[in-house]
């Protein structure tokens, strides 16, 4: 894949840039596909629904956008291929023993193309004359959890013949304001994260045989959180999200993990962007003190930590600190929590029910807890990588979490020591060392092109001295540095670097060796 060279375009947001790089390095794929399914019972007007889909795409240009790099910058342009809005007659499909869920899985597995489009796709399936299924799948770079609510709301409005409201800002304006805020906070954020961020890849969990922070095929364990979660949170003086996060930290500590950070998805939406479909999420790590004393006090300590982080919610961690390589999960264990206040959407003449948590069959790291808190219940899902965590291990984690939350709900004043906690898990595997590029010997001048590549690195990173085997990410490099290096190497050395080399060997010597290899091939 060579970068798409494009003309004019708005600047992509920092989050989009990071996701684009991760995708180009071959670490994204299905984990970034976000499915949503709506079932319709009754006489659905398919033409009208498809027209409504077109209206929504028109109102939300992100869905019809593509990302392309030019001169080291990632920009948004209209996609060559806009989102397809298809129809398939699947009458008799369910009688033949298939389930609608299989259609959702299939649609989710279809490729999305951030470079040329489509970044999203709609398909209406007719299951029976009066039963239909709409499957929508979007790339996370142009969509997020809250976008689901906006999409369904605007689809319902358009289907009912109401206009979809125009958005107050263009994406370019949003990105400009966001970048200005980030630039202002960057120094403080670096200070904030210095003592808090510790890139630990060790982990103890029941049934664990390894650790992953890379996207992989995933499986899921679904369960419902206690109905009295809200009451318990109120009594503790924290939100439901803070209570769940405190419980996850308590469990991790009980398993024997010291100083574990849990990455959480924080919304970066503002009053101005609340109605925009797009990517408005930043994943940030939340550490916690060792759980001790009253659980209520511990939960409030977690709350304080989270609140402190909110100030920097728009600053990507990789921009503030060094050593964060592009990845799909910052930490092996992560949590996302979404409140859904919206009532059920009304499509005139038909009954619509939305599958808000359609699963993309992928996981971003080792274990991810997804919680959707809606008026009709708090649904939870543990997504796990079956290559490193067994299903029974994941089920144990779900049971432990439930037992803990139930006990907290029953006795909000309890001490941590009096709560039902699992036993310490012995580490089940040795520490896995990443193969280090610096293990390779040889002087800098032994590698051809190292001098030229080194000059580019010094310019991009703004550093006078860089060792030939120093790791780009340890030096504070991030996704922008990668695109800038690729652009400068293209311009000066007439070689198109792949993104993979930044994953395999992100050093001056590594890049120089790749340049030599590509020159030889040419």
């Amino acid at each position, binding site marked *: 894949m060579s970068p798409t060279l494009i003309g004019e375009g708005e600047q992509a947001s920092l989050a989009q840039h990071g996701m684009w790089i991760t995708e180009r390095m071959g670490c994204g794929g299905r984990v970034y596909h976000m499915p949503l399914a709506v079932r319709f019972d009754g006489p659905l007007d398919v033409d009208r629904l498809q027209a409504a889909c077109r209206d929504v795409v028109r109102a939300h240009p992100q869905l019809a956008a593509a990302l392309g790099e030019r001169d080291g910058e990632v920009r948004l342009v209209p996609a060559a291929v806009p989102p397809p809005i298809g129809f398939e007659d699947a009458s008799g499909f369910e009688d033949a023993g298939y389930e609608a869920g299989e259609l959702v899985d299939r649609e989710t597995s279809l490729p999305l193309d951030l470079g040329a489009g489509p970044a999203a796709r709609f398909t209406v399936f007719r299951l029976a004359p009066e039963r239909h299924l709409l499957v929508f799948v979007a790339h996370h770079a142009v969509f997020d959890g809250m976008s689901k609510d906006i999409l369904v709301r605007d689809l319902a409005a358009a289907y009912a013949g109401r206009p979809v409201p125009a958005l107050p800002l263009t994406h370019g304006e949003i990105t400009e304001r966001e970048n200005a805020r980030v630039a202002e906070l960057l120094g403080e954020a670096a200070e904030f994260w210095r003592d808090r961020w510790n890139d630990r890849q060790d982990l103890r969990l029941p049934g664990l045989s390894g650790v992953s922070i890379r996207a992989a095929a995933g499986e899921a364990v679904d369960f419902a959180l206690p109905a009295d979660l809200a009451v318990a949170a109120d009594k503790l003086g924290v939100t439901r999200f803070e209570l769940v996060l405190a419980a996850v930290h308590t469990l991790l500590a009980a398993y024997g993990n010291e100083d574990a950070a849990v990455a959480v998805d924080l919304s970066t939406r503002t009053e101005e962007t609340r109605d925009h479909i797009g990517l408005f999420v930043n994943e940030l790590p939340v550490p916690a003190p060792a759980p001790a004393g009253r659980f209520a006090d511990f939960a409030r300590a977690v709350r304080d930590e989270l609140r402190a982080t909110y100030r920097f919610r728009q600053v990507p961690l990789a921009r503030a600190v060094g050593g964060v390589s592009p990845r799909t999960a910052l930490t092996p264990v992560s949590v996302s929590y979404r409140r859904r206040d919206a009532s059920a959407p009304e499509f005139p003449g038909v009954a619509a029910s939305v599958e808000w948590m359609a699963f993309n*069959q992928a996981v971003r790291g080792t274990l991810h807890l997804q919680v959707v808190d809606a008026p009709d219940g708090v649904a939870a899902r543990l997504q796990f990588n079956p290559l490193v965590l067994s299903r029974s291990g994941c089920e144990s984690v779900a049971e432990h979490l439930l037992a803990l939350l139930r006990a907290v709900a029953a006795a909000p004043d309890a001490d941590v020591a009096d709560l039902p906690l699992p036993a310490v898990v012995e580490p089940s595997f040795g520490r896995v060392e990443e193969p280090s590029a610096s293990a390779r010997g040889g002087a800098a001048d032994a590698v051809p092109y190292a001098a030229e590549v080194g000059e580019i690195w010094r310019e991009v990173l703004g550093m006078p001295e860089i060792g030939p085997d120093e790791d780009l990410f340890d030096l504070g490099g991030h996704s922008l540095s990668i695109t800038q290096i690729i652009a400068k190497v293209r311009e000066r050395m007439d070689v198109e670097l792949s993104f993979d080399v930044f994953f395999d060997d992100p050093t001056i010597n590594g890049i120089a060796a790749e340049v030599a290899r590509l020159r030889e091939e040419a």
Partner: protein
Amino acid sequence: MRERVAELVAKASGGDLAVADILAAECSLPALGLTSIAYLRLIDMLETEFDCDVDLDGGHLDTLDGLVEHIAGQRK
């Protein structure tokens, strides 16, 4: 086996796609017009005929050759 898989693709498509076109296609099966429903039918047919497991997760299974390779690997 390539011809047989192409025949099953044609059958799964309910006759919308011709065997010759499938064999000659340089694009993916969805791009050729294979619908999601036809794809699920195809997977069932392949699993029955070749007594194998076809994993739905892989995007590489969207081409005829990808499918043939996957089935051949499963049968070892």
